[in-house]
């Protein structure tokens, strides 16, 4: 068969899927068939390209053309111009917002320039539902090397040498963790993959599983060989149907070719993987809770020790790692620990994947070497703040993390520096906020989450967080006092010191970090009852400028609670006691007489 000239890669990740990428793909196939181009062009459904902001994305190889916000109606033109005539469809090319230039080759996009893709190496390049495409990109070579040439101890040493630390939030050295698990003797051990991804606003792990499921399976097998386990379990959120589907396909294909199951690669090593479904509880991301949930119980955490390495799933030694941690493993063996440990910084090796979201131009999935600064991520990769607004804060670490500000922008991204700055690496959520976000409300948002997600087992977390939330609510409603701010600080400290598991111990972080970095804003809320972002509506005051108002009565007729009075043709007034701050009057006034004070 003649070599296919063009590969048309269409993003099949959840984000683009939501904007009809499946329709786009079938349209491509239709047009290719109609025009008899089946030997020239081939459509491939890939995982996420990362540049979700501009989705749905279609990338054409070999020339790396990157078409953005493609619609099914654009397909015919792409085929006619690009595939048949070899001319790019300029209007669909990505435009560099700074230079206002079309970029023809994705390698030249700022979004990709600063990135190094290790965990995401295959996402957006291969068809995740075809094991051969994974194999063609060094897939399962690491496994074959480990099984064929290394003893478990040697392989563990290699992981230790790489300096890889857990990407699920804690940052524990992965090689060391494997070594612990390998030391315990038992008739059965387990390798567990934590794919619970509870941080609301993070989608790294899901994208890896959707875009490159085999990398995780391969790593779990290597881990199994190292610690002496023959069973792997992936605990995945039931809310991730596409990732579940891709994993099922991957497991089935790996079994068919003998890369999972009995006597793998003829080495006598047995290993198989099963899926376990989460059911929407954030605390189940915590490893002891996760194990209880896999056993069919309520997902309540228990005190460590014993660590899972000693007594985990069904009381057997178990090694729990995060999806992204696993995705790094095959590369460490393919390229060598000494290649991997040159990337990053002294104490944080390799790269980290972040789900960059919020008020930023380039929302998407990115992977940067450790040590990259927040400024580089936000301004170079992220393309700066949406709508030319002013940067206010960046939140990392999800509900356990904190908000960093302008003065932290040059902090290099590392486990330890982020903690020193008052936040944490977390699993990879990175949310950018601008001047329109109220920091008290953001703290309240996270507390609302923790209150809902606290498992209720221990009092500081169950009751303490509720109180924190009540105080924050009171402040945003305009009834807060200075004493409330003291209470917030003291109570936060008590919860941190006394809660049983990581959820409770970190839940006050969003409060403490916003108090630290945005103290003025808190004080404004409680003293002058002002929310500078205009988010806390109960503090807003709508007023009519008597100089501008011509008395047309339009606002009064539209006010849902009849708060506006006045004679026709003379200035109207708003009764503040009745006003519910709905903003209707301001929208309706054609003369701009109504403003927010």
């Amino acid at each position: 068969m003649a070599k296919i000239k063009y590969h048309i890669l269409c993003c099949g990740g959840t984000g683009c899927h939501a904007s009809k990428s499946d329709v786009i793909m079938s349209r491509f196939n239709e047009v290719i068939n109609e025009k008899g181009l089946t030997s020239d062009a081939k459509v491939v459904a890939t995982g996420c390209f990362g540049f979700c902001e501009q989705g749905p994305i279609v990338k054409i190889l070999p020339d790396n053309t990157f078409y953005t916000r493609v619609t099914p109606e654009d397909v015919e033109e792409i085929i006619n111009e690009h595939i048949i005539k070899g001319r790019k469809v300029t209007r669909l090319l990505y435009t560099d917002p700074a230079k206002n230039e079309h970029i023809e080759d994705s390698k030249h996009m700022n979004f990709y320039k600063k990135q190094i893709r290790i965990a995401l190496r295959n996402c957006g390049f291969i068809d995740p539902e075809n094991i051969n495409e994974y194999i063609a990109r060094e897939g399962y070579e690491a496994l074959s090397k480990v099984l064929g040439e290394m003893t478990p101890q040697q392989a563990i040493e290699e992981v230790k040498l790489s300096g890889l630390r857990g990407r699920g939030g804690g940052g524990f050295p992965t090689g060391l963790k494997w070594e612990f698990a390998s030391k315990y003797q038992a008739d059965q051990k387990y390798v567990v993959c934590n794919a619970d991804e509870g941080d609301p606003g993070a989608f790294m792990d899901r994208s890896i599983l959707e875009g490159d499921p085999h990398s995780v399976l391969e790593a779990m097998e290597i881990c199994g060989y190292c610690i002496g386990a023959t069973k792997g379990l992936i605990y995945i959120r039931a809310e991730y149907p596409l990732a579940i589907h891709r994993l099922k396909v991957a497991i089935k294909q790996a079994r068919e070719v003998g890369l999972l199951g009995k006597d793998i690669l003829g080495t006598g090593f047995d290993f198989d993987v099963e899926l376990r479904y989460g059911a929407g509880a954030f605390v189940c991301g915590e490893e002891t809770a996760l194990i209880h949930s896999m056993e069919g119980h309520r997902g309540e955490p228990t005190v460590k020790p014993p660590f899972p390495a000693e007594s985990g799933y069904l009381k057997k030694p178990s090694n729990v790692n995060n999806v992204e941690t696993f995705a790094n493993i095959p590369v460490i063996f393919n390229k060598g620990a000494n290649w991997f440990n040159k990337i990053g910084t002294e104490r944080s090796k390799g790269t980290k994947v972040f789900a960059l979201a919020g008020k930023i131009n380039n929302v998407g999935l990115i992977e940067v070497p450790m040590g990259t600064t927040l400024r580089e991520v936000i301004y170079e990769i992220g393309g700066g703040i949406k709508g030319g607004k002013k940067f206010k804060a960046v939140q990392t670490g999800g509900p356990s993390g904190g908000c960093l500000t302008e003065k932290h922008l040059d902090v290099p991204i590392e486990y330890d520096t982020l903690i020193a700055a008052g936040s944490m690496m977390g699993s990879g959520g990175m949310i950018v906020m601008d001047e329109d976000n109220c920091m008290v409300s953001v703290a309240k948002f996270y507390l609302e989450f923790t209150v809902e997600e606290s498992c209720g087992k221990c009092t500081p977390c169950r009751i303490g967080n509720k109180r924190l939330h009540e105080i924050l609510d009171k402040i945003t409603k305009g009834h807060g006092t200075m004493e409330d701010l003291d209470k917030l600080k003291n109570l936060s400290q008590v919860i941190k010191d006394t809660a049983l598991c990581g959820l409770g111990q970190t839940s006050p972080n969003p409060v403490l970090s916003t108090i630290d970095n945005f103290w003025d804003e808190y004080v404004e809320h409680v003293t002058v009852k002002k929310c500078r972002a205009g988010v806390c509506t109960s503090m807003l005051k709508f007023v009519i400028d008597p100089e501008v108002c011509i008395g047309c009565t339009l606002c009064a007729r539209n006010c849902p609670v009849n708060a506006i009075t006045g004679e026709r043709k003379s200035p109207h007034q708003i009764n503040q006691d009745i006003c519910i701050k709905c903003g209707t009057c301001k929208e309706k006034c054609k003369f701009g007489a109504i403003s927010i004070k």
Partner: protein
Amino acid sequence: MANIKLAEDKLKALIEVCKSFNNEKGELINVLHKAQEIFGYLPAEVQEVVAHELNVSVATVYGVVSFYSFFTMKPKGENPISVCLGTACYVRGAEKVLEEIKKVAKVEVGETTPDGKFSLACLRCVGACGLAPVLMIGQKVYGRVAPEKVNEILAEY
């Protein structure tokens, strides 16, 4: 709660599901996932059957059902609306979208309209943060939803 009668064929399917998991206690969560697929929700009667089949107490089953937010004990509307309140959607104004839906569809979070047409729920991150704010109706995802677009979207149903 008024007793409801479970449809014969669905009941049979449920018992089959329990059997396919060897009636193992440890498979409770997997069984409940399947049960919710069959019935759409998990009323007390379904929980009783599961408890009986897996030989655990009804309290254990209830404990698990009430712990996990994915499980619901109330039937959903014909068109279940879910508004994403993940952080990315929150900072891009998802709350305003939620308020608008409550107004337009006349339904509160966790409730179903009297005619059974819509039910409303919040969820945490569907993972389409690039499209924030996001809402789902059934399996269909709507991205970049402005409060002004809510009326138009709901009118499709």
